[in-house]
Structure formats: structure tokens, C-alpha cells
């Protein structure tokens, strides 16, 4: 079992969701986060004053998958989120020690899907 965490551009969320659904990955958690990588934030202009270095809005996805779904999930996220420019985001894959479905107390692989 792996936990996949992806940080993506907010405006690519719909495309990433579509790609994930196409890959049969239907269980995701989405949150809105702030941060920046190498591109150091966007410049907004208020009354003529440029404010640089603002943290950027990003979307964070968390997806827990069984091992045979890892590659498909990564492919789907990449397909939906990639524009080729700086700021497209990152995907992190972590080992997942346990997963429990609260409703039934099932554990492990069967609790994920």
C-alpha cells in the first residue's frame, strides 16, 4: 500500500480528476494549500504596487492505493497536471503502514478500494 501525495496547479484540478477517474482511481482527498517551489510566487499588482514572492495557491491531493495502482495513478496525475512550465508541481509516494475503513473496521488492502 502506498500513499500518493501530489501538489498541483489549481487550474489543472479538473483535468487531473478526469484522468484519475479514467484510470479507475476514484478515492481522493483534495485540499487547498499555499506554497511555492522554484518559481517563487506570482506577482500581483495592487494600486500599482507589485507584490512579489506571494505564496501560490496549490492543490494537494492525497490518494491511498494498492501497489498495483501506483503507476496508473502517477501517470494519470502527470497527464492531467503537466503543462510543461515551472510550477506544475510534484508527486510524492510514501509507504503506507496501515489503512482502516472506519465503517467496517476492515484493515489493509481491502480497506483501500
Amino acid at each position: 500500500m502506498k500513499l500518493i501525495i501530489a501538489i498541483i496547479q489549481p487550474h489543472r484540478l479538473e483535468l487531473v480528476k478526469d484522468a484519475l477517474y479514467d484510470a479507475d482511481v476514484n478515492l481522493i482527498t483534495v485540499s487547498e494549500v499555499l506554497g511555492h517551489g522554484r518559481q517563487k510566487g506570482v506577482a500581483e499588482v495592487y494600486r500599482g504596487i507589485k507584490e512579489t514572492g506571494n505564496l501560490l495557491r496549490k492543490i494537494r491531493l492525497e490518494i491511498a492505493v494498492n501497489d498495483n495502482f501506483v503507476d496508473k495513478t502517477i501517470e494519470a496525475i502527470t497527464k492531467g497536471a503537466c503543462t510543461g512550465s515551472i510550477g506544475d508541481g510534484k508527486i510524492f509516494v510514501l509507504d503506507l503502514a496501515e489503512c482502516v475503513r472506519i465503517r467496517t473496521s476492515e484493515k489493509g488492502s481491502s480497506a483501500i478500494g
Partner: protein
Amino acid sequence: MDSKLVIDTGDTAWMLISSALVMLMTPGLAFFYGGLVRRKNILGVLMQCFIILAALSLQWVLFGYSLSFAPGNGFLGSLQWFGLNGVGLEPYSDYSATIPHQAFMIFQGMFAVITPALIIGAFAERMKFSAFLVFTLLWATFVYDPMAHMVWGVGGWLRNLGALDFAGGTVVHINAGIAALVTAIVIGKRKCYKKHPTSPHNLPFSVLGAALLWFGWFGFNAGSALGANGVAVNAFVVTNTAAAAAALCWALLDWKFNRNPTMLGTISGAVAGLVAITPAAGFVGIGGAIAIGLLSSVFCFIAVGFIKHKFGYDDSLDAFGIHGVGGIWGSLATGLFALKSINPAGADGLFAGNPKLFLVQIAATAATMVYAFVATYILFKLVDKFIGVRVVEEEEAMGLDLTQHNERAYTMLE
């Protein structure tokens, strides 16, 4: 013009207040619409409404008022009053014998401002700001100004035909409503449409906006009496009554067909009722007002809930569904419910035994629809050809606030 005319201070005071009330409707509309869009587009909507207030105010005093109201032919005024030349502080008896001519001018100016703003609801969340600005100025000049002249201007052919439009059912609501339908179809659906229905990002804003609209509408309708008099009071009372009947009716329709009475439905009903009573406000009584209000919600409910989905156009915030449909109903209903006993300057409608007025109202309604449809289509296509009306796909996904204005409405952290 006629130096013997005397300015009535009460009338003048009421017209100044009414003008200010109508001005408030444009920011009210901005919040009504702004609450309904996704949060990445609210500044785009507010900005479009606010810039119209600025741009159209100037257009109006420079040449818009002249094109609409100066002596001309049956279709258009002239440039005789360019820059308000000859539009002074004395009354001009052809339009209003008891208030300064400029009071009439500025009151009408607020109508010229809000009318193009109504169309914004149709192309919300995807129109390029530059194209929007150019289109709006062209539309005001070549669609609104001629329409205002035809219906309200001395010599206007619809006015001479005997069509009744107390406060702008044809000129404002049908005109903008049809323009909304045309622009929604030409610009095309939002990328997210159908696949992911978009939820209003801030319904309380919309409620606030609708309340401001209702409030401002007292100036819009009761002010259209052009004086502090009995007709104004009648217009005030029937305006409130129709809005109330329509708001309640939509809430009940929601309850029956969508399981719960909704806030958005209730304010949509109120606006629909206000739209529908607009042409009739100076000519109908309480009975007519209740009937007009109730049925406006029924028709608009059907337009918004069924017709739009059946045909699949993306009139994003239902500018056509409410202003177009409500306006058409109100204009026809004026021919049904008008009573000469309410306003001797009006006429009796069908239910008072005068079918002729109903036929005239049908003609005026149809003429407005045809003119608005054709002229809007040509202008919008022209702007699309030279500037391009739509933002590129990535900008649409990022939102108009950031891509058109380089600002955002809400921060996540301080």
C-alpha cells in the same frame, strides 16, 4: 425650453433620489451576479459592472442621451444634444414639464448604465475584459440608444404606436435579455458546464445584491412617474407587491419540485417579479401586480430549470431566463392588466375590454426581440472577429480575477 414652465421642488427632489436609487442597482447587480460565480471570477464580475457605471455615464452625457432622446426620426435621436448642449436646468416639456431637463437626463442615464450590465450574467466567467468593454460601448450606442428612442423618445415609432412601457420592460429587460441569449450562444459554454455544475461561491452576496436591487427598483419604477405623485405611489406599491408574490411563488415551486425552498430560488423569484412588473408599474393595480408576480416566477422557473437544459446554452447566471423571459411576460401582461382608472395617460388592457392594447404590446415585444437579436448578433460577432470575445482555455481555468485583473478576491492566509 419653455420659460413659462415651473420647476416643482417635490418632483425634482424625488427624481434626484430616484436617480441615486437606480445607480445603486448596478453595484447591487454586481453582488447578485458576483455571489453566483466561482470565487476565482468574482472580481471579474464586479469589475465589469463597475466599469460600466464609469464608461456608460460618460457615453451618456457625451452622446448617448442625445442619440436616445434628442429630436430625430422614428428609430434614432440625433447628435443635436451632443455633450448635453441644450440640455439645461429648465424643464423640457416633451419629457417632463416639472423637473429640470438634466434631472430627466441623469435619471435615464442610470437606466443606460444598468441595462448592459444585465447582460454580464450570460457570458460570465469566460469573456475577455477588453472585448467586453468594446462590446458594451457598441451595444449601448447601437442597441440601447435606438431602442430607448423607439419606445420613449419623441417621434419614436413604438411610442407613436401606443405601446406602453412604464419603466423599461422592452428597452431594458427584453433588450438585455435577448442580448444575453445571443451572447451566451455565440461565446459558447463554459468548459466546466454540464460536466461539473458550478456552485455559487457566496450566496449571501447574492442575497445582499438582490435586496439592493429590490430597494433600487423603487427608484426605477416609482421614479418613472417622473414626479412625486399618485402614479409614483401606485408604481411603488405594485412593484413591492409583484416582487413579494414572485419571491413567495418561486420558493413554493422549489419546495414542490426540488424538495426544499431555496434561498437562491427566492431571490431569483423576487428579481423575476421586479422585472415583470417594470413595464406595467404605472398602469396596473394590486390584482394585476399579484398575477404578474406569481406568473413571472412560473415562467422564469420553467425557463431556467427546463428550457435552458433542453437547448443546452450556457446562460451562466440566467440573464435571459430571468430578464428576457420576465420582461417578455411583463410587456405582454401590461396589455392584459392595464387600467385607465389607475393612470389616465395609459390605456385599458384586454381584461378591461380593450384587445387592441394587447396586440400593440405583442408588436412592441416582438419588435424589441427582433432588433435586439439581430443587432446584438452582428456587434458581438464583429467584436469576436477583431478582438476575440473569449479568454483562452487556461485563463478560463485560472479565473478572470487573476488573468484579466491580476488580483484575487480572497486570501488564504494573512
